[in-house]
């Protein structure tokens, strides 16, 4: 009899809240669609071969995937214990203190803005064949970029996150096209035999290795977003880690395969020269020769939608970052407000659009090259910024677990993030040494120092701002790193430590 009495009654609350919860596939789709695979394969990889001139890009993708998988072990473990889990600076705040957190937030703003704005340089090249085919017109790149800019700006203000179903279909189509292209390239090897030279360590450990590693990191940007769903997932302990590892693995396989098959089809000895000459057209020219016109057209159309989807996704990421900082009052409070009707972070979205417009006009007026100097330079610089944040976060994870004494396996709290931190630091050192290769400029060009130096300067200024907040606005200082949860940080009037509530309460 007693067994019936102790049987747990089904909970209406748990059931109602579980209904909208996400499973592994939903989270993976979300992450991958932000990563925009075709943009990376057709845009970043081809330009990368041409500019950097190193054959080892496929191996770099695999190496970076291994490092990020190690990093993710600690990252997802800490994410479960965090408010504002989607933002690297929140981890740094908890692990290394609030001034370091503000410094990281500044770096994040620059890096994500660079990634978003850089995409305006690719849209012209992506739209050119499609517009030519449809209307027979060849507009200037900046006209296309301005149209895309207006579209992104309006969608951002209306908070039209493209429907998840549409994104999923586009993503599947992109991956299908990439695989078809790859198979065709592997089926038509240059010189008649398939070469594995791109996977040879001899072609990887060469001057310029740091540059290709940054390029590979750039391809993975977006994987960090999986933890945003820690609370909305069916099983936070399983769903988010699984989704993170799966995303990293899928990205690694697709990118390594694609970048390798390009070298097979063109020939390892000629890929650098051909990629330099044909730029983003390379894989489409190959596909046109191997597969015919229909597949080529589909591929070109998907490249265009891929770049657009990536733009909208990065615009929203950047606007939300700014919104979170506005909620904390680390940035002016106006950035923390939303449009009542749509819930869009209005001011944050407008600010991002404003920056985009300035950059497009700057490049148009000066006649700078959109693909190399806008898309590739800002893209790789943004990727370098994300690399710096991942490395700092890896250290923050170790110190967080060491200081808080929370129950966690040794692997997740020390060993995995420790190896990742060492590897990431090594990549940073190599990247700084090879920054001239990454940008494709002369080794004595001031640009090779200017681009990487932006981040330490921003981090330093941010940290100083954090220290200033501690003295002048202790309320704001207490909220740093909590994002949208910061409203709760100052709520309890008496008793408990006001800093800890927002996050601790929900444990």
């Amino acid at each position, binding site marked *: 009899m007693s067994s019936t009495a102790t049987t747990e009654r089904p909970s209406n*609350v748990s059931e109602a809240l579980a209904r909208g919860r996400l499973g592994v596939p939903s989270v993976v789709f979300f992450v991958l669609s932000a990563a925009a695979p075709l943009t990376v394969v057709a845009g970043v990889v081809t330009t990368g071969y041409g500019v950097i001139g190193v054959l080892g890009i496929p191996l770099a993708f695999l190496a970076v995937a291994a490092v990020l998988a190690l990093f993710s072990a600690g990252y997802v473990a800490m994410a479960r214990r965090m408010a504002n889990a*989607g933002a690297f600076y929140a981890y740094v705040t908890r692990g290394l203190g609030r001034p370091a957190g503000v410094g990281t937030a500044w770096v994040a703003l620059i890096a994500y803005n660079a990634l978003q704005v850089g995409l305006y340089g690719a849209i012209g090249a992506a739209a050119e064949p499609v517009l030519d085919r449809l209307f027979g017109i060849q507009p200037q790149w900046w006209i296309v970029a301005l149209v895309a800019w207006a579209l992104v700006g309006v969608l951002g203000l209306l908070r039209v996150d493209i429907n998840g179903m549409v994104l999923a279909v586009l993503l599947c189509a992109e991956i299908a096209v990439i695989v078809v292209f790859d198979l065709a390239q592997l089926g038509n090897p240059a010189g008649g035999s398939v070469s594995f030279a791109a996977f040879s360590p001899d072609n990887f450990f060469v001057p310029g290795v740091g540059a290709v590693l940054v390029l590979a990191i750039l391809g993975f940007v977006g994987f960090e977003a999986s933890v945003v769903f820690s609370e909305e997932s069916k099983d936070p302990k399983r769903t988010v880690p699984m989704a993170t590892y799966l995303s990293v693995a899928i990205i690694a396989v697709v990118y390594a395969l694609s970048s390798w098959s390009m070298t097979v089809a063109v020939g390892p000895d000629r890929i650098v020269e051909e990629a330099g000459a044909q730029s983003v057209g390379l894989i489409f020219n190959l596909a046109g020769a191997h597969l015919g016109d229909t597949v080529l057209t589909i591929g070109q159309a998907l490249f265009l939608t891929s770049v657009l989807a990536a733009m909208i996704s990065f615009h929203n990421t950047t606007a939300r970052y700014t919104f979170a900082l506005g909620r904390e009052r680390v940035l002016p409070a106006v950035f923390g407000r*939303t449009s009542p*009707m749509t*819930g869009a*972070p209005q001011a944050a979205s407008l600010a991002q659009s404003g920056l985009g417009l300035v950059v497009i006009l700057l490049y148009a007026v000066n006649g700078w090259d959109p693909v190399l100097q806008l898309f590739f330079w800002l893209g790789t610089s943004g990727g370098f910024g994300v690399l710096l944040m991942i490395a700092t976060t890896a250290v923050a994870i170790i110190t967080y677990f060491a200081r808080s004494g929370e129950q966690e396996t040794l692997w997740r709290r020390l060993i995995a993030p420790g190896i990742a931190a060492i590897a990431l630091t090594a990549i940073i050192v190599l990247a700084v040494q090879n920054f001239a290769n990454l940008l494709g400029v002369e080794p004595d060009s001031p640009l090779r120092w200017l681009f990487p130096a932006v981040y330490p300067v921003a981090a330093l200024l941010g940290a100083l701002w954090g220290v200033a907040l501690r003295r002048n606005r202790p309320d704001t200082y207490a909220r740093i790193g909590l994002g949208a949860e910061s409203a709760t940080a100052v*709520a*309890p009037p008496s008793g408990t430590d006001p800093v800890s509530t927002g996050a601790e309460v*929900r444990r």
Partner: protein
Amino acid sequence: MLIADEFFLIAHNDTRGKAKLHPAAAGLGLAGGLLGELILYGHITVTSGQVTVIDRRPPADALAHTVLDQLIGEAQHQAVRTWLSFLAQTAVTSVGERLARAGVLRRQENRRLLRTTVTYLPIDLNVAAWPATRLRAVLERSEPPSVPDALLLGLIAAAGLTREVLWSAGPRAHHRLNLIIPALPAPLKELVAHTESAVGAAVLRGIP
């Protein structure tokens, strides 16, 4: 009029009953209103992010009664944020129905293609517009507002509706609003803060 009712009318301050607030914030603001009503009646309290029932006697209002029953029936869930999310899912309908029962709104079903949507139309426009007008007047006066009015203002600010209410008010009203929320009794202040956090988190997730 009850807190959640006034919030509803302010968030749908329109002749056609269309929402002026996005669904996530409207639901969470109304959920905050429903919990706030129970706090004001002395049925529950909020401390350190947890809801505790302190008086199990049924409240006079039917909806408040239902909410209290749910709180008592599922005592394993205590986090304010859990209850805000749960109540937010149905709050627009349940509060809209309450206002329809009270004769303030009229329920209207619209069939469009395959979907049926429900809107609540004001029966008397003056009654529907009154809460916003009243709050503006409250902020213009120099004496501090009553606790229920202060809570309503807090929830309005938490949901991001301040400019809807204060569109014509001077800087003095804005300044006064900034002083009212910190002066709320502790459980209500915490409720407002959790509502603001939940609304912000919904924006950050980006899924409407």
